[in-house]
């Protein structure tokens, strides 16, 4: 029997934010997620920490929230944010009147903007189009959704939080108009179990409508697909936004060694539909090229899509016209005490959304503790001394990024393993310099159920080779950690098929070449098809 008061459904940014918030207020909570953390939109977006500039012209309230949260997250989440800064660029073909409205919006929402000359802009962003007419600097940054979620979890666990991944809610239980609990299915073992609680929070993102339906409620969520392209190098040094009315393919976000171009906005019916097509790639490329002329010379690593859970109130619209704001629905008004749904919103404001929702939950539970999520740092970073002494064993390029990924406690364990066992210094991933010791550290965690879980935590398979070399090594490491209880060949095959999904819509240029290398290794040299006699 789990001793909890609140059950949170959904392991995206909002869900993990709520878990941390409630637990910090002393409210015992459990988060359940049907897959791995961030397998929805929180792991499938461009990883942009908005300065608010994107919304300044249209939605000042959203812009204001963004800049406030931007400042808070830089303070509490330095390990998942890369402070790149951002630039808004107006091309000669873009309406100058829009810029005026934008500047006014920024001013009123408190979004700091610094105009720079075109010469300066070209100097710091040499890839920029010669058709740039004006440029402004803002406080955008790059944010890592995977890391952010796991660091929220790590922090929440310090306050007694519980979380179960691969647990899907199959029934929401109530009695006399009051929430009683929920029935769950363990998606790994198939086993079913019941948890009892006073409050259920539906933070299921694009699946929120489906979850609400389990409680007999109707919440209209329109999944809105955003496709993105990841390129294999840092094409730009800062987030580059096109200064025009928000549209497809007009934002570039640099992340470590890669750059993300996004996004599209297409309404879809199925919250599982993250498919992408050649046509979407072409459209994004066409618009992207207007800002970065040599774009096509860069290799595409992969294409992926996430689903924005746009909330459509009665009579509202879908698509880009729909609000990027969020809504909290207390279903007490629908006759179900203890049930909440939170929908819409943006990754940048996840903490604020969690705070507002938690305020309402706390009130309902007569808890008067204030929200403290904005004050406390999410993870403890290793000290400079600890980093310095680990330098001898870590691959030079991988050290800093590994500290961000691992946090102090895990970093200490990985450093120790590297020091003690030279064989664990082998690089599983040569693209991003990830050692066997780190892969084993994460593979050992009970939340790791397959190579994709391992990938989201360590970045194996996310670099240039897209798994061609590391699928084998990661599968082997995983197999050994699991003491031979998994089929390594099946695991690597599944992993490579997952990578293929993102490569396939952009199968030209060097992505095609890399695919042939992958086939040469796994089909010719390893005969992966010959797995069973």
């Amino acid at each position, binding site marked *: 029997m789990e001793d909890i008061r609140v059950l949170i459904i959904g392991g995206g940014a909002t869900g993990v934010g709520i878990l941390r918030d409630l637990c910090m207020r002393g409210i015992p909570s459990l988060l359940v997620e049907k897959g791995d953390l961030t397998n929805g939109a929180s792991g499938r977006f461009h990883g942009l920490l908005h300065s608010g500039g994107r919304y300044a012209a249209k939605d000042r309230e959203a812009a204001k929230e963004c800049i406030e949260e931007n400042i808070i997250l830089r303070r509490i989440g330095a390990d998942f944010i890369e402070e790149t800064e951002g630039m808004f660029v107006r091309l000669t073909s873009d309406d100058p009147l829009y810029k005026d409205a934008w500047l006014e919006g920024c001013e009123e929402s408190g979004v700091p903007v610094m105009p720079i000359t075109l010469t300066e802009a070209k100097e710091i962003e040499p890839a920029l189009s010669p058709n740039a007419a004006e440029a402004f600097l803002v406080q955008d940054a790059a944010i890592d959704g995977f890391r952010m979620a796991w660091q929220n979890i790590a922090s929440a666990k310090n306050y007694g939080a519980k979380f179960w991944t691969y647990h899907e809610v199959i029934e929401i239980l109530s009695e006399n108009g009051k929430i009683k609990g929920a029935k769950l299915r363990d998606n790994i073992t198939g086993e079913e179990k019941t948890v009892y609680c006073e409050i259920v929070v539906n933070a299921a993102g694009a699946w929120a409508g489906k979850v609400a339906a389990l409680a007999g409620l109707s919440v209209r969520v329109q999944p809105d697909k955003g496709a993105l392209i990841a390129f294999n190098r840092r094409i730009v040094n800062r987030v580059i936004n096109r200064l025009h009315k928000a549209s497809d393919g007009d934002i570039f976000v640099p992340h470590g060694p890669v750059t993300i171009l996004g996004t599209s906005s297409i309404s879809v019916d199925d919250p599982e539909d993250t498919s992408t097509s050649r046509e979407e790639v072409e459209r994004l490329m066409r618009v992207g090229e207007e800002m970065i002329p040599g774009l096509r010379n860069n290799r595409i690593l992969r294409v992926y899509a996430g689903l924005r859970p746009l909330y459509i109130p009665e009579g509202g619209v879908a698509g880009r016209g729909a609000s990027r704001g969020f809504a909290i629905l207390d279903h007490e008004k629908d006759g179900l005490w203890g049930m909440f749904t939170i929908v819409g919103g943006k990754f940048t404001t996840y903490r604020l959304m969690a705070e507002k929702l938690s305020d309402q939950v706390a009130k309902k539970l007569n808890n008067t503790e204030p929200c403290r999520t904005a004050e406390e740092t999410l993870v403890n970073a290793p000290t400079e001394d600890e980093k310095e002494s680990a330098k001898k064993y870590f691959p030079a390029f991988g050290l800093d990024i590994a500290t961000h990924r691992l946090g102090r406690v895990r970093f200490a364990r990985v450093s120790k393993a590297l020091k003690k066992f030279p064989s664990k210094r082998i690089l599983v991933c040569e693209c991003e310099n990830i050692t066997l010791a780190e892969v084993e550290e994460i593979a050992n965690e009970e939340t790791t159920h397959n190579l994709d879980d391992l990938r989201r935590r360590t970045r194996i398979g996310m670099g240039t080779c897209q798994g061609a070399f590391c699928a084998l090594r990661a599968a082997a490491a995983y197999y050994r950690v699991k003491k031979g209880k998994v089929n390594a060949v099946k695991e690597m095959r599944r992993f490579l098929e997952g990578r293929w999904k993102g490569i396939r819509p952009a199968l030209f*240029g060097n992505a095609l*070449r890399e695919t*042939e290398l992958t086939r040469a290794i796994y089909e*010719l040299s390893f005969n992966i*098809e010959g797995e069973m006699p």
Partner: protein
Amino acid sequence: MKTIVIGSGLAGLMAAYISKKRGDDVTLLASGAGTLAQNSGCIDILAYTKDKTPVTSPREAIESLPETHPYKKIGIKNIEAATKEFLSLVSSYGLPYCGDLDGVIKVSTPIGTLKSTSYVPYSMNGAALFDAKKIVIVDVERLKDFYGDILRDNLTKHLPQGIELENITIDLSINGARDVSTIDAAKRVDLKEGFDKLVEELRPHAKEGVVFLLPQILGLRGDKAYKALIEVLKTPVVETTCLPSSVNGMRLVRIFCRAFSDIGINYVENTRVIRGVIDKSRVEAVVAKAMARNVKYEGDKFILATGGFLGGGITLESFNNARESIFRLPVWMPEGEKNWSNEKLFGSCPQGFATAGIMTDNALRPVDRHKSVIYENLFVIGRNLGGYDLFFEHSGNGVALASAYHAAVQSVK
């Protein structure tokens, strides 16, 4: 006859070799190191039919291939002659191969699957595994990309019951800070102290009925280390395939290098051919970018062996825009997004993109959409050819050798 071969993968090297043997004056133009070092060096003729049924006799299976398949243009006689030439070449340079066209050889992979192929060095022939009482799977300390435990798990499923499998880890005392590859280990075994260490580590396990299964580390010098090892251990030893770069591919690179210098082939490295000089329907010369200037190579006969997407001979900078960059030959490719690739990377039908390539007549001269020959003295070989998915059917090296031979033996006016 002056023959110019462009490309230094297995196809190009073989074409140059056969052309020279037949008396041509041969120049081979190579832009880089070529793909042979990445090549497993297993001569796959045909291991799967188009619905992924395993082939038991490549000779028979080739008969039922569609007319568009390169093998059908080359013909079984040429395939046979090509493999014969290859076998005699490798054997005379100290790396004899075994195999034939009427059956398949099973090779063990580092993940314990078995791979069917047609010709391999004796060290890779997996037949001994089936007759073993006990297979000792040998991991090497610090060696990357070989996992004896996974190999054992999977290999068991493919072997007759009753064969005992044991994992051991040996130490070849390989120094240095970076990760150890099979090539590092093979170089170590080529040295006397490395070889002695290998023997010392294996000897205690070498008993009656034992077969050693090793990563591909038995030296880069032909079968020297392999022969010496089975002689002292008096037990069979089998090598697996490996990740690129491949030890066996490197062995072949060395063989071709030695053969070329022995028979006198003009091998020009670091020269990227950028265009052809055309006179009506004949190629007169090719122009190559050398270190500092462009150089023109005139010839009577030209053989294009620059590879496909992987080798770089065919590029696809954007959808529907495949290019062969030297002669601007038309590249056939399946049309439409659906036909371009399958939903799954691995599966039971060939990938459309892998069949993209240049279409030819039966003499392997490039043809246009109307099947008319474009240049009468230009021959297209290896992965430049369209109409087959070599990764799916396992036929890459077979087509490379056979097409090289077929192109090399033809005279031009």
